[in-house]
């Protein structure tokens, strides 16, 4: 049983999705979703502890030996990502019940849960598979269900946001397929480990750099690196609250993982950074993302949109860490992957609570919410502090490592930009705090605190922000091991 965990992690949710759709009762479908996400969380934690204890797990699908068959590989890097995705999934599902009841018409709720579980399946699949074509298939499973989830939003602009995401996402995925095809033509294999062995022989050909370029553009489109982020703000703003909380803290993280996997495991750091000089393009884009997107966030009146732009800036931090191509830099990037999932999950969930009670997340309607909904706004404040990078929160830990990685390479200006980003984050978080705490609430509206089923998952993430901010040794330990493994220093 435990031997089959890598595949059961993906297959159980995959089977649960049609069951949720067929049951066709909101409560029953929700129950299926809870069961599926809890299973995924159990399997993910089990896999993480196994890989940390005994090293990478290799699982041959259907007993076909790699590299001919499809292989699932779980090592510290992807076990970590699997845990993040499963954890957020397991927290969003209990949260979704009430939030979704209010935001989505009843006949669509079972389909919502089916799409939700499918999206989770796809993201978990991308993370565990060791086969590049399998990556594409799971990528499309998660993307197609994400388009459907976003289109379920109340606002009709959710439809155009979803359509725009579909067009850009499909182009990105097709670019990835082209890259995979060109790699296959040169090496005759699709297995990641096998590709890593065979690519150096043909790396001097013209085809491999072209494949590399297609993959870079495709993946950075999926992870919304500036300037390929255009699909993200609308999609996050108009999607149902639960969907935003889930997608914002998982989908882009999995894409960042893909970037790591392709550039470090498959192409190797030497080819990616010395031959192709990827850092020369990633680092400027990451820095521009941090500064400009934080600036844009300051001018937003819709808090979900504000947080969406902030997400693009935060992705900049992750990519910046990766672009150092050092153990410290990668550690910072991988650490921020986890930390950002915690903070953005908490922030978007608290906005879901506001949406539930107020029916809008526009700033002008949030006057005095700090008094009307103390727990919700307290969650927002802690999440916001984490976003800024105040000590005792996770945001501080990742910024600390990021600044250290920049200083290690003598890049003072880069460290300066990281700190400037924190300052800008302070400005946009303060904007919300000011409205919520220093303005009078309209007593006629009679706004009360959000129900417990919404607050509890939010606060689990908030406490996670504080716990991993104070006791960072676990998360840093895993991130360092993952970074060392990706760079091959182990």
């Amino acid at each position, binding site marked *: 049983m435990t031997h089959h965990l890598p595949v059961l992690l993906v297959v159980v949710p995959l089977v649960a999705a049609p069951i949720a759709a067929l049951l066709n009762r909101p409560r029953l479908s929700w129950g299926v979703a809870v069961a599926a996400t809890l299973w995924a969380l159990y399997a993910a934690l089990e896999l993480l502890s196994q890989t940390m204890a005994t090293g990478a797990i290799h699982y041959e699908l259907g007993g076909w030996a790699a590299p001919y068959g499809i292989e699932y590989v779980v090592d510290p890097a992807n076990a970590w990502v699997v845990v993040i995705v499963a954890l957020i999934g397991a927290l969003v599902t209990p949260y979704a019940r009430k939030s979704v009841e209010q935001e989505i018409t009843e006949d669509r709720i079972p389909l919502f849960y089916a799409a939700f579980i499918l999206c989770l399946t796809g993201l978990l699949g991308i993370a565990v598979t060791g086969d590049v074509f399998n990556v594409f298939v799971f990528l499309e499973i998660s993307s*197609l269900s994400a388009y*459907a989830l976003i*289109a379920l939003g109340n606002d009709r602009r959710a439809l*155009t946001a979803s*359509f725009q995401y579909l067009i850009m996402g499909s*182009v990105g*995925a097709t670019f990835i397929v082209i890259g995979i095809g060109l790699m296959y033509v040169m090496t005759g294999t699709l297995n990641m480990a096998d590709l890593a062995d065979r690519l150096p022989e043909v790396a001097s050909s013209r085809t491999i750099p072209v494949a590399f370029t297609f993959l870079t553009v495709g993946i950075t489109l999926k992870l919304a690196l500036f300037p390929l982020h255009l699909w993200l703000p609308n999609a996050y703003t108009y999607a149902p609250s639960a969907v935003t909380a889930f997608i914002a803290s998982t989908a882009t993280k999995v894409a960042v993982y893909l970037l790591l996997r392709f550039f470090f495991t498959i192409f190797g750091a030497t080819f990616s950074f010395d031959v192709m000089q990827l850092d020369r393009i990633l680092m400027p884009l990451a820095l521009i993302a941090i500064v400009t997107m934080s600036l844009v966030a300051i001018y937003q009146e819709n808090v979900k949109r504000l947080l969406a732009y902030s997400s693009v800036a935060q992705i900049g931090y992750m990519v910046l860490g990766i672009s150092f191509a050092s153990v410290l830099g990668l550690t910072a990037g991988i650490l921020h992957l986890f930390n950002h999932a915690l903070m953005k999950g908490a922030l978007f969930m608290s906005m879901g609570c506001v949406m539930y009670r107020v029916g809008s997340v526009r700033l002008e309607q949030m006057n005095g919410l700090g008094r009307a909904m103390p727990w919700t706004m307290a969650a927002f404040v802690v999440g916001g502090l984490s976003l800024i990078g105040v000590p005792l929160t996770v945001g501080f830990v990742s910024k600390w490592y990021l600044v250290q990685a920049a200083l290690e390479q003598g890049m003072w200006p880069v460290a300066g930009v990281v700190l400037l980003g924190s300052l800008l984050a302070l400005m946009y978080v303060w904007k919300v705090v000011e409205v919520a705490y220093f303005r009078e609430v309209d007593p006629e509206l009679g706004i009360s605190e959000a129900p417990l089923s919404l607050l509890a998952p939010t606060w689990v993430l908030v406490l996670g922000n504080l716990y991993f901010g104070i006791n960072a040794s676990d998360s840093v330990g895993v991130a360092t091991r993952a970074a060392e493994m990706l760079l091959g220093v182990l």
Partner: protein
Amino acid sequence: MTALGLFNYWAVIFLMMVGFYTLIARGNLVKKIIGLNIFQTSVFILYITMGKIAGGTAPIFVKGGEDVIYSNPIPHVLILTAIVVGVATSAVGLSLVIRIKEAFGTIEEDEIQDESL
């Protein structure tokens, strides 16, 4: 190989650019989906072409034929999956267009943008 020998690859590049251009330049959402389809189709042809080996036959084992050249079936199998994905993408995209038409009364991008303000 001569330029003519690479005919399929020229076709791939041509179709890819036609699809990509349509996708970017057209404001009509259905035409965008058509562009996306052409773009994806070009990749199908790319994969199918790379599986073909000159003089190769269908990859069915021939008894006693050690010197038979077989075409590589794997790209064909892979692209079968990608075709299914492409069909699913088109289906989701077109159903979104239907709902956009219901909600906005138009499927022209600029008119939708005016409506959204």
